[in-house]
């Protein structure tokens, strides 16, 4: 039982509301309501934010479904998907220089952040043209340097996400040959929280969810207030309102809790997680001792479980989002 909580987030279109929640005082309002305090901390380096959460420094952290499985869940930290915020619907893409179709990628060096969702996207895309990673060479490239990397002659193919993606696509010689709208609902951005902490402190979950959906309501409206919120988020991410709206357009935000609940409870999610688990296992990052992709168990809202039932470390749970949908907060 505790009263002070810390969650962390990093700069990404679907997570910018977290920063605004803190700055605008909405979070404080909701925390006060439940008699707790919640500190929302921005961490520039995405991987570092997950590492910190995994190490136990934070009670929650925004991350993708894939990274949740590989880092905290794979590291034995029981983690619950509290708020399923959005999925990438074109926010991640594959770009070829001076080539027009995905099949042309054969034999090229592909620059991407290895073992990230970009890597996953590439693997899924290659399947659609009956290729595998053997047909290309992956070059691990830091996201911060992706744009500059693309500007060099030796880089001919990149996989990345927004806002880097739209910066690169804007160049004359760039063609986006595949993007995450081709695998809708597979790259999901989620606020993950520590299962144990959540179990012991339901108020923590309630405050976060309540605050989040209040802001979703504001943000999705075309009102002055909504614009103001989006402008602030745009600037915090280093762009302007138009740029930020463009990024939002390729992100399937769940502005209402009901949408999020529907998506999380749908039958596609277990399939997606199976893809992801197999991808991670194939890359050898489920841990040294992982004998199969089913090593880490994942539970779903309907009670079904993928993988090892005795080692469930990642839980998709709609309880709190449902409370929000039902107006119960």
């Amino acid at each position, binding site marked *: 039982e505790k009263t002070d909580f810390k969650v*962390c987030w990093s*700069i990404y279109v679907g997570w910018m509301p977290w920063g605004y929640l803190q700055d605008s005082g909405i979070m404080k309002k909701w925390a006060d309501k439940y008699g707790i305090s919640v500190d929302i*901390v*921005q*961490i*520039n*380096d995405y991987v*570092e934010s997950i*590492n*910190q959460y995994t*190490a136990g*420094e934070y009670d929650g952290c925004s991350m993708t479904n894939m990274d949740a499985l590989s880092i905290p869940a794979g590291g034995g930290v029981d983690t619950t998907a509290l708020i399923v915020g959005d999925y990438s619907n074109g926010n991640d893409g594959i770009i070829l220089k001076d080539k027009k179709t995905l099949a042309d990628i054969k034999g090229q060096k592909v620059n991407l952040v290895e073992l990230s969702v970009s890597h996953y996207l590439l693997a899924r895309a290659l399947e659609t043209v009956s290729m595998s990673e053997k047909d290309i060479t992956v070059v691990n490239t830091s*996201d*911060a340097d992706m*744009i*500059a990397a693309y*500007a060099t002659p030796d880089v001919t193919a990149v996989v990345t996400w927004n*806002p*880097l993606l739209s*910066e690169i696509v804007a160049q*004359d010689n760039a063609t986006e040959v595949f993007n995450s709208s081709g695998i809708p609902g597979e790259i999901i951005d989620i606020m993950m929280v520590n299962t144990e902490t959540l179990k012991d402190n339901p108020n923590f979950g309630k405050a976060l969810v309540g605050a989040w959906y209040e802001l979703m309501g504001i943000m999705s409206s075309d009102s002055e207030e909504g614009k103001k919120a989006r*402008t*602030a988020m745009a*600037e*915090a*991410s*280093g*762009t302007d309102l138009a740029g930020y709206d463009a990024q939002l357009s390729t992100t399937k935000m769940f502005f209402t809790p009901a949408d999020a609940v529907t998506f999380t409870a749908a039958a596609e999610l277990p399939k997606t997680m199976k893809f992801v688990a197999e991808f991670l296992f194939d890359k050898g990052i489920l841990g040294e001792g992982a004998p199969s992709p089913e090593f880490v168990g994942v539970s779903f809202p309907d009670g079904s479980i993928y993988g090892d039932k005795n080692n469930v470390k990642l839980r998709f749970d709609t309880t709190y989002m449902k409370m929000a949908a039902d107006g119960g907060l």
Partner: protein
Amino acid sequence: MRIINRTPSRRTAVLLGLLPFAALIVSYAIASHYRRLDNPADKLLPSLGDMASTFWSMAFVADKRSGDYLLLGDTLDSLWRLGAGVGTATLIALVLGIAIGFIPHIRSSLAPFIASFSLIPPITILPILFIIFGLGEVSKVVLIVVGTAPVMVRSVAQAVMNIPRELIIKAETLGASVWQMTTRLVLPQILPHLITAIRLGLVPAWIFLISAEAIASTSGLGYRIFLVRRYLAMDVILPYVIWITLLAYLIDRLLLIVSRRAFPWHHAGGNSL
């Protein structure tokens, strides 16, 4: 007359010194010009005018969102961290350096460890630093300390060991205790070397400051560069880099002047760069 015997006049020297800077600016302007001929929206090498106007607005136009002057805020935050980091490193260097240089038992026990420790690239153990020190200001300061202190400790210790043994013996015959020797003999004699060590340590300190701010921070010069880097906003990055270089240069000169003023007995004779 051989070229090594010819010394340029003061005016020639200044002109010669400006030459490479001018060459850099001109070649940048040309490269930028041709890139923008190809693609007028090129972001990589913005024109000098663009950079100037961006810099101007970051420096003198209050940010719409927060009402702050971004450059000022970033600079103050970064300088604060740099100062805290280098200050802490200096203190550590002073205490450990004197102990290691002066007391053989401490030297035996700590010198090998610090020598090894100074070889660890700090960025590789960042996650551990962040876990131990959190992600707040402390961890940024600690990263600077970890990156600069070992080398500074080493050079202070070496400076202590370079104090002629004769002076230590002399102090003993004058009845000084170890503590008195430390405060009256060792400390004042190594202070100028400490300043040299700080000046040398500032180069990595800036690098670690920028790295730390790029990982976890919401303000500072490194944060700003990190933030706009994903949009390849070189019109912000390049002026920031120049600004950082200028700050670093000014701090370096300031320390040199302080040293010359405070320790006239140390700066006698000998050309230095």
